[in-house]
């Protein structure tokens, strides 16, 4: 992690075109940006491409960074804009092939006869996690792109309603409404309806 005093120096070097300094900056935030992209795209390859695009845009725009806001705040706005452009550039219909790919990746361990050197309980747990992760991704994919983005910005980035509204160019009321709908749909997708909370094995699974 970059220490606070190092950040301005790294930014100044990166502004002058120092790739090494810029890579140090990316190292500090690349997981966070990638995770956001992964939740948004639901596909590891697409997440990689999208997050790389974010970094390239950031590198090109770094000269315009004046330090009036935090570096990550500035970077996040670039991320949001990139995601929104990505959303406009393609249909956000869930791709069945992707689903098959991910599920296949999980199931193929047994199909390929790969021996997992771990206890049976742990292996089952991992498989369960993978399946539930697919379920979450399926739920996210069923959300409209903007709703999904709003949900991610709120839940993963911890932005306030107002911050999201400003970043996406919508009202705070729309943000709140989108969040409510997104959470309802995800809950339904996970089978966590009212009265089933006690039986939600995945949610309480440690």
């Amino acid at each position, binding site marked *: 992690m970059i220490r606070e005093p190092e950040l301005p120096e790294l930014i100044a070097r990166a*502004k*002058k*075109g120092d*790739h090494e300094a*810029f*890579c140090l900056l*990316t*190292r500090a935030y*690349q*997981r966070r940006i*990638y*995770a956001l992209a*992964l*939740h948004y795209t639901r596909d*590891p390859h697409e997440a*990689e491409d999208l997050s*790389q695009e974010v*970094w*390239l845009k950031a*590198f*090109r*725009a*770094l*000269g*315009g960074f*004046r330090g009036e806001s935090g570096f990550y705040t500035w970077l996040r706005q670039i991320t949001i804009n990139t995601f929104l452009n990505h959303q406009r550039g393609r249909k956000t219909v869930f791709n069945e092939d992707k689903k098959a790919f991910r599920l296949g990746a999980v199931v193929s361990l047994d199909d390929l006869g790969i021996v997992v050197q771990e206890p049976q309980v742990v292996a089952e747990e991992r498989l369960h*996690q*993978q399946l*539930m*992760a*697919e*379920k*979450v*991704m399926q739920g*996210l994919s069923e959300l409209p792109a903007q709703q999904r983005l709003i949900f991610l910005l*709120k*839940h*993963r980035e911890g932005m*306030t*309603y107002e911050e999201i509204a400003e970043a996406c160019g919508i009202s705070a009321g729309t943000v*709140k409404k989108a*969040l*409510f709908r997104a*959470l309802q749909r*995800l*809950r339904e997708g*996970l089978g*966590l*309806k*009212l*009265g*089933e*909370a*006690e039986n*939600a094995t*995945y*949610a*309480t699974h440690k």
Partner: protein
Amino acid sequence: MHNCEQTKEQLLDLVFDELAPEVRSQVSAELTQCQRCLAEYQTLTETLRAVDQAGAALMPAESYWPEYEAKLQANLAQVRPNPVRRFQHWLQGFNLALWQPVPLATAAVALLVALGWWWNANRKQGPSLSARDAGQSDIAFSSPTPLPTTVIPSATPETGNASPKPSATLQQGTPIRRNPKSRGAAPAQSVASDTAASEMMVAANFIPAPTVGPVFEPEAARHFEKAQMLLRSFRNVRPVKTVRGNQTMDVSYEKQWSRRLLYQNILLRRDAETKGNLPAQEVLGDLETVLLDIANLPERPVAGTVREIQARLQRKELVAALQVYAAPPVLSVYQPH
């Protein structure tokens, strides 16, 4: 009194931590009173936890990141920063605040004004160097290859008047032969007030230059150039045919050009009068007379009329004067004998 609907409306804000502390504790208290609201709240938090766990499960292993960074570096190598930004960074090396366009624009305007003033001042002063100044100049005396001196006759040949006239100026560097008739008059007028300097220059075998007159406006210089070409052309006009025993000359081209130049000449002369520019006033006055004469010539003038104007041109040495005035000034004032 607990209201389930009202509490449910606040659950989203509670889950996303958007409630003020006092409201938060109030809603939390409500949840302890109602199992149904509590269950609703739990399903929401469990959903969010599931999303977190899914994200963690799908994140790539640590071994993935070096490859990710290598790919990013390869992509970066193909990207050059925006040229505008690069220029800004270059300028920022001079501590210019580009994000403050108003001060920058003000500074740029001030710089332009200063440059304009400096250029204008230099242009008006020109490379003039009076005999006195030049006499004190190391450059003038040590110049290894002094350029030829150009002298405009200071006295009209008709009168032989040697009094310093405004037209008796020197334009340096123009390769025109000195006029023998004005050789003595030119130094006398320019260094008369400084006998010692004059003696020194004579001893050094240098001819002091007359004081250079005001440099003409570029517009006037161009006018002189055109007029000079016209007068040269007029001077070379030859008889073309004989009508009833008289030689006539074809001066249609010169007439046409004279009319064109006449209007410009009048404007320039008036301008010179307004500014009190005596040398310009004089040469433009002489030129105007000649231009008028040429412009008013008949289509086929007899040779005598044309030769009369040509003789006047020669007497006044107007072509030479125009050549001098049209030439760009060059800093060189002394010529060894």
